[in-house]
């Protein structure tokens, strides 16, 4: 069984205010899919961290937001892409507490703990793609 994409929306991250727009779009999507308050806060916060990474480390990029479905479960998948400097030491970045910019260094490691699926690919000098997914908790009233 493969994951179906039910709807998608791409947002550009060109200024700091775009981070707010990304997380607002994610919040609306999560609420429409029946995410509870905890899952909504988790996925919205992860979106905010990852969008901020794109802005802070690469000076911009994009966020592709997808409403996904697999075996009756619904979820949100987000692809954050940038053409920034890339991450030389991915292991260290994922361990947390590592940052060269003005942040807590929790962007990658923190958001990883908030989602169900997490994948990052980064090439030095080319850029970074982070793909994460969060599923709604299974409930008989949704889906």
């Amino acid at each position, binding site marked *: 069984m493969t994951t179906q994409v039910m709807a998608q929306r791409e947002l550009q991250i060109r200024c700091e205010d775009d981070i*707010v727009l990304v997380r607002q779009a994610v*919040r609306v999507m999560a609420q429409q899919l029946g995410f509870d308050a905890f899952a909504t806060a988790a996925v919205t916060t992860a979106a905010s961290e990852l969008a901020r990474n794109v802005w802070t480390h690469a000076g911009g990029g994009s966020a592709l937001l997808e409403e996904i479905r697999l075996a009756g479960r619904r979820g949100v998948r987000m692809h954050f892409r940038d053409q920034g400097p890339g991450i030389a030491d991915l292991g260290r970045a994922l361990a947390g507490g590592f940052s060269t910019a003005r942040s807590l260094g929790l962007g990658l490691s923190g958001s990883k703990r908030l989602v169900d699926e997490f994948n990052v690919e980064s090439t030095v000098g080319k850029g970074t793609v982070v793909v994460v997914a969060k599923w709604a908790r299974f409930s008989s009233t949704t889906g």
Partner: protein
Amino acid sequence: MTASVTAGGKPRSAIPVLRVGDTLLVTVQIELHDAVADAFQEDLLVTIEKTGARGLIIDITGLDMVDSYVARVLADTGRMARLMGTDTVLVGMRPEVAATLVRMGYGMEGVRTALNVDEGLGLLHTLQG
């Protein structure tokens, strides 16, 4: 990435500050995003100086999302106020916000918290003897 701000003596962050006795009560309801954060802190510090407030309560009941950036802004604001001699209590954090912050690995250590404004005022009175 620089933004020029024309202050003109007017609050720039548009976050209302209420004075209750010798305590300032700030209710954060709007998205405390990047451009607003610095102005918020600076306006607040100036208000502390002007009013001689001994305590500061930051009410975040209205925030359904606090990312690491906003968490740091809030914690830093308390540290700045502390340097001036004013105690800060963060109140009204929602359950989903608390869960998310701790799961991310940010427990906001060193930040005084209380369930709500009443409890916050009580805590400040205890602190100030």
